[in-house]
């Protein structure tokens, strides 16, 4: 547990020291949110109806920048190879990085929610539930995203490769998180929220386990 804490501390410290880049990701996400409203037009009702989808699309697009950046420092001067020389199982390194990425994406989502409220009138009566959903959705993006970013950071054409691999995989996250967000914003008279959260939780459970098992294979080559 101490090893995991140290690895997580290292990831969070790294993110704190590159906070200027985080700001640019926030601006990117807010810009994406603004641009999506132009696709619908100035219809307040329609904008509110699609606010959940816009929020998660903006978060998904921004996530590729965050995930890429989290691995950039590891590829410089073969830092990852240096980390692997430490007496730490690669699985611990993966989970530390994935937890740090989850936190960063959830915080990014939390910053984008007020923007969505201002632009689309996407208020919710259950802000805590929405934040919980942001954490769960961010976890669904972060586990496969961290694994794929570790591969693509050391491949050619990494900017296009990460979205190519990640986007088809996280379709269930996008569907479930969008539906759940819309239910929180527009109301849930049929009590469907729990089903979508279960799907999201199931996806997270499967991919946090699978990616943790696979991480060792892709770094120890």
């Amino acid at each position, binding site marked *: 547990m101490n090893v995991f804490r140290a690895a997580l501390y290292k990831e969070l410290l790294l993110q704190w020291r590159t906070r200027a880049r985080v700001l640019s990701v926030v601006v990117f996400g807010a810009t994406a949110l603004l641009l999506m409203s132009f696709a619908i037009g100035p219809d307040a009702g329609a904008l509110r109806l699609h606010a959940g989808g816009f929020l998660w699309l903006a978060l998904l697009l921004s996530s590729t920048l965050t995930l890429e950046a989290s691995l950039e420092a590891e590829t410089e001067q073969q830092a990852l190879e240096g980390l692997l020389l430490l007496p730490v199982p690669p699985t611990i390194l993966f989970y530390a990085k994935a937890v740090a990425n989850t936190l960063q994406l959830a915080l990014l989502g939390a910053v984008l929610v007020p923007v969505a409220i201002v632009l689309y009138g996407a208020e919710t009566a259950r802000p805590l539930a929405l934040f919980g959903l942001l954490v769960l959705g961010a976890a669904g993006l972060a586990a*496969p995203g961290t*694994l*794929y970013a570790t*591969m*693509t950071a*050391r*491949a*050619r*054409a*990494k900017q*296009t*490769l990460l979205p*190519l*691999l990640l*986007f*088809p*995989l996280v*379709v*269930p996250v996008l*569907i*479930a998180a969008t*539906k759940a967000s819309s239910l929180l914003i527009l109301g849930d008279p049929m009590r469907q929220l729990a*089903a979508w959260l279960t*799907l999201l939780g*199931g*996806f997270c459970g*499967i*991919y946090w386990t*699978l*990616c943790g098992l*696979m991480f060792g*294979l*892709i770094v120890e*080559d």
Partner: protein
Amino acid sequence: MILPRLASPNLAFALVALGVLLLLAGSYYGLFVSPQERYMGDVQRIMYVHVPSAWNAMLLFTLAMGCALAYLWRGGWGWDAHHEALLEGAAVLSFLLCVQGSIWAKPTWGVWWDWDPRLTTTAVMLLALLGILALRSAVDDPEKRATWSAVATIIAFVDVPIVYFSVRWWNSLHQMQSSPETVSAPFIVPLRLNAFGVLALMGGLALLRARVAARRTAKELGPALPPMPAGAALEA
């Protein structure tokens, strides 16, 4: 590197020839012998290539996943070569499946595309397969390429049922899938002929493509090291 032991090209060519013959027979039966379907008319005949494409796309992806697991578990460049060939075969069939589905959907449903679970899952599967093939083309080191793409294949394969059920909850319109149990006897013959035809054709092509992949990897890895002379280890 020594070339891995692969199936004889004669077997591959025989499978391709068998596949072509079965497809010709199945297509003739499906177009000229099989009766016209009562409600959809001639449009229904696309089922004779659509359903076999669907079965074989999923089969090839499953076999690719098996090769990926075998490579990670046991190693061996033969598994990697077959993995690459099967991924490409599955991608081709998934693409054909989407195209055939759209051609059938326009006169039947009135739209080229519908967000039905199977159609959407096939599109997602196609994109996932193209992503893995793009990853393979972007990595120069053969060992990294084989390991990373094997991991990506396993991860994408696990995703297929999750995508299917999430899209099914989200929206559904597709009719129940066709199988020999759900269609009447005159429709079964061309369906079966074409299913085995596509299987034999894609199997033969995959075996040939695996040979190309194995030769490329052998070239990348360079010649095998000469055997150590007897007693060299003791002298050292």
